[in-house]
């Protein structure tokens, strides 16, 4: 087979945004992908079924779909703009401007995900670091309620465990300790071997307190059965760390979200004895970008409503609360809420006008009142995105699409409503 000259691409398969992918293109089609994991490869090859423009589930031309979307949003008293984690920052900024124009609520998938952690990092309450620092310096890494081997397959090989770094020249076995704290023996837990700490569901807060006791030299107490000696051994490992990192997964965030201050207390206790940073395991490729972009415009990272007196933020403006009672029209960009939101909440999407902007046909396109197809962000459309550690990354398109980008669709809607 004749080889094509590869293009270096930043993978948008997850928020690790691997920037070393080589893509061979022939006749505007992907021929071969090198270095991307299976998840990244699936991303490069695009949707199984592409979306088509529809109004009331009947095929229309894209201009009619855009006009219908604009009309729905203009008529609504309380529109909600939601999704955004699978879009470039440029599309997200357009979405924020549209929300401002409409006086709408805007929220992203981070609302019930890592938003809370990212907020604390952005306001300086939790110390964080970059993935490059992890590779060059980290000697102790903790995957807490996180299974990157499944969610971000190259996490351990590219940054957190296997590579040789400036201060970690001798390879992972001698130079790094990987620890997993989780409720199931995940793929990541298997790699951590004896440093896997199996806790019961919802047991994270207690384990954290027990670890703080261990750090302070007190005998840890736990209501569930756990070998206290192992906690003391773990505390000793953490104390000795030169550059420690906690990768906080959704398992941890969900488990302690009602008492989230505990993470702050834990980090400051830990850092009295040692040197630890925390990085949230954002999933979708630009989840963190939305938080950064909205923060830049409004001072808030999610759950925002634009009022006459400016932007306000609160739990009442979250996607979950707005869908329960509030929103009377929804624009979804780059998300499949019917598949990803709890059924009790997603059900309400059938009762209110729903507009979907997405490259692919999904569960939500089957019920959407208006569907507007767009070019796939990070494949047909370039731009920028924010990696899970907060680093801004450039993303170049690899194939040429013939449709509008999500940013252009949002801007066209904006032209028609303003």
């Amino acid at each position, binding site marked *: 087979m004749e080889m094509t000259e590869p293009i270096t691409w930043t993978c948008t398969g997850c928020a690790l945004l691997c920037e*070393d*992918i*080589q893509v061979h293109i022939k006749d505007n089609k992907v021929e*071969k*992908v*090198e*270095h*991307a*994991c*299976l*998840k*990244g*490869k*699936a991303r490069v090859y695009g949707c199984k079924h592409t979306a088509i423009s529809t109004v009331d589930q009947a095929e229309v031309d894209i201009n009619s779909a855009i006009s219908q979307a604009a009309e729905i949003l203009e008529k609504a008293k309380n529109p909600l703009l939601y999704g955004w984690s699978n879009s470039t920052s440029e599309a997200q900024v357009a979405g924020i401007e549209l929300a401002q124009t409409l006086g709408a609520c805007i929220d992203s998938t981070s609302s019930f995900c890592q938003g809370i952690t990212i907020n604390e990092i952005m306001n300086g309450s939790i110390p964080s670091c970059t993935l490059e620092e992890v*590779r060059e310096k980290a000697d102790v890494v903790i995957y807490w309620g996180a299974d990157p*081997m499944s969610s971000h*397959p*190259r996490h*351990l*090989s*590219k*940054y957190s465990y*296997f*590579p*040789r*770094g400036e201060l970690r020249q001798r*390879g*992972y076995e001698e130079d790094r300790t990987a620890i997993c704290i989780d409720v199931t023996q995940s*793929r*990541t837990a*298997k*790699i951590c071997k004896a440093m896997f700490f199996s806790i019961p569901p919802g047991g994270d807060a207690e384990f954290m307190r027990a670890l703080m006791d261990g750090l302070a030299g007190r005998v840890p107490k736990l209501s569930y059965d756990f070998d206290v000696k192992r906690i003391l051994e773990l505390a000793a490992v953490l104390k000795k760390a030169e550059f420690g990192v906690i990768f906080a997964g959704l398992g941890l965030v969900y488990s302690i979200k009602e008492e989230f201050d505990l993470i702050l207390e834990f980090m400051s206790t830990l850092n009295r004895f040692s040197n630890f940073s925390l990085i949230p395991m954002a999933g979708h490729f630009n989840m963190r970008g939305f938080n950064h972009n909205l923060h830049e415009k409004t001072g808030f990272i999610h759950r925002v409503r634009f009022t006459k007196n400016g932007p306000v933020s609160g739990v009442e403006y979250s996607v979950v609360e707005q869908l329960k009672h509030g929103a009377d029209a929804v624009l979804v960009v780059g998300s499949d809420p019917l598949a990803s939101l709890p059924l009790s909440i997603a059900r309400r999407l059938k009762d209110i006008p729903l507009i979907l902007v997405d490259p692919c046909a999904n569960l939500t396109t089957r019920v959407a009142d208006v569907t507007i197809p767009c070019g796939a962000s990070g494949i047909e459309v370039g731009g920028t995105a924010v990696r899970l550690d907060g680093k801004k990354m450039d993303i170049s398109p690899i194939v040429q699409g013939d449709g509008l980008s999500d940013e252009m669709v949002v801007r066209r809607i904006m032209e028609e409503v303003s």
Partner: protein
Amino acid sequence: MAFAVALLSRTKQYTECPPLMEEDKYQDSRQKLKNILKPMEGAEETGLIIHEELCSGCGNCVVACPVNVANDPHGSGRGFGPTNEKVIFRVENGIVKAANIKECRRFGKDRILCRACIDPCPTEAIEFV
């Protein structure tokens, strides 16, 4: 005994034993040996088998293999995709591929029982038979 050793080190095949192949009384043994050695069909000379259907393309083996690290210290050794052709493992279309297998530390005169690609694999996709 010498033949058994040659068989295990893969310098000889069981089909090279004339009595086993020709004499009826060894028919059972022949079948048993065939079954035992079945997993070695398709294996590389070092005995490496990659179960592609299990591989997630995570690259752990790419970065952990000492040959990859020695032959591509600034690429695979640092966590990136390989930057030259001298490596054993690389990921293509989401699945690991092996080449230069003679470089493997399990091969040749000074062979050692290296497991640096087996242990980091989260799905047991790498096996040596």
